[in-house]
């Protein structure tokens, strides 16, 4: 596209300008372009003529326009700003005008260029340093720190006792109703005694009212004795029987009441 365009001026100049223009994409923005342009002044950045630089930049933008190269917006913004700066630098300062003077603005631009240049050089120095994996190396055969996880097993005395109790009771597990085999309720004893007291005309040890077979098994004996005793008291309260006991811990005797009452 560029080659098809007719460019004013000498061939060498044209080629140089084209090279610059074609390289627009290669510039890292307008500041970078300004820095590149500033090199043509062949002076220290501190002595650079910002006015001349502004003119160079504006000429570049003109050329790009002539070549119908679309410049990114920020290049055009910079061009506008440089045009403004140029007018400020050329015209005598207007005392009514507010804001920074042309010299101040130019000085800042010079500072920006110098700073960018300095960063460029610093970056180059940094990259020229010895680098790990290229000039110096870290350990190749690393030994990982092994994480040794020791598991300390623990148990308490309670765990131990519960564990043992669990084993010893496991065999005995039976449905709940079956458990009541060794238990006699007062209701059961009462029911049983109501039928029996009819035959108890004389004083009888209440122990004899225990159901058959319950007197040998200690648990059954305990339960049935308690139930029978409670039932006896209940019957006495009802006035159906009389109770007597010769002395503490002596056998408790019972007889039907209505016969004698």
């Amino acid at each position, binding site marked *: 596209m560029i080659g098809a365009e007719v460019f004013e001026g000498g061939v060498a100049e044209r080629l140089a300008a084209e090279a610059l223009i074609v390289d627009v994409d290669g510039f890292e923005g307008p500041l970078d372009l300004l820095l590149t342009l500033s090199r043509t002044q062949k002076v220290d950045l501190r002595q650079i003529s910002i006015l001349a630089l502004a003119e160079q930049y504006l000429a570049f933008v003109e050329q790009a326009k002539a070549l119908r190269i679309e410049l990114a917006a920020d290049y055009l913004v910079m061009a506008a700003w440089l045009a403004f700066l140029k007018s400020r630098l050329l015209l005598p300062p207007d005392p009514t005008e507010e804001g920074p003077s042309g010299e101040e603005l130019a000085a800042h631009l010079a500072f920006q260029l110098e700073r960018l240049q300095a960063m460029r050089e610093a970056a180059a120095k940094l990259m020229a340093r010895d680098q790990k994996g290229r000039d110096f*190396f*870290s*350990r*190749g*055969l690393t*030994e*990982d*720190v*092994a*994480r*040794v*996880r*020791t*598991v*300390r*097993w*623990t*148990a*308490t*005395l309670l*765990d*131990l*006792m*519960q*564990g*043992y*109790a*669990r*084993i*010893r*009771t*496991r*065999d*005995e597990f*039976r449905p709940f109703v079956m*458990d009541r085999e*060794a238990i006699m309720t007062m209701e059961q004893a009462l029911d049983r005694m109501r039928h029996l007291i009819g035959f108890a005309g004389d004083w009888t040890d209440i122990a004899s009212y225990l159901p058959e077979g319950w007197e040998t098994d*200690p*648990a059954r004996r305990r339960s049935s004795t308690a139930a029978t005793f409670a039932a006896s008291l209940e019957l006495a309260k009802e006035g159906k029987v009389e109770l007597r006991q010769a002395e503490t811990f002596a056998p408790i005797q019972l007889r039907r009441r209505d016969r004698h009452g």
Partner: protein
Amino acid sequence: MADPDETPPRETLFEAPPMAEQERMVEAILFATAEPVTVAELAGRMPHGCEPAQALEHLRRRYEGRGVGVVRVGDAWAIRTAPDLGFLMRKETVETRKLSRAAIETLAIVAYHQPVTRAEIEEIRGVSVSRGTVDQLLEMEWIRFGRRRMSPGRPVTFVVTETFLDHFGLESARDLPGLKELRSAGLLDNRPPPGTPAPGDEDDDGEQAALFEDE
């Protein structure tokens, strides 16, 4: 690979670096290479005329007694941590975990019935005892092998250890709460095992005591 001993004092076309320099090179290569390096590889990487085997020997000696050493790995050489400092390469973490139910039950049976055979443990627990469980308890040093039982097959018995007693704060296994205490602590049901006379509690204790005497 050039054997340094066979190599006569040579006049090489290129001046080989001084031996101290060669040693530095070997050091850097051994350090940075991810695998052990053979003498041939060293020679291939070092400037012409170098004698890596000799440089290696200097380096090996230099590292003697240091925190790392030049060691031979097959045909190759590497820098490795001194064996006595291996502990620095470990980060020990201790994790406390509750013993499994199977292990606790097995342990309890050993404690209450020692000396007890595996068959007896299984009989009491009503399930087979895995090898792992017994091994774990042995490894923890909470149980150990007791005398062999004078019965057919002469089965080995298990007993609890001092470590076990220490851990549970017991003077002896006899201090373990008896069935009665377990019962009164509500750990055992009040129901007596069917067919077992209730005073059998004392029998159990007696039996246990007898077993301990046997120890």
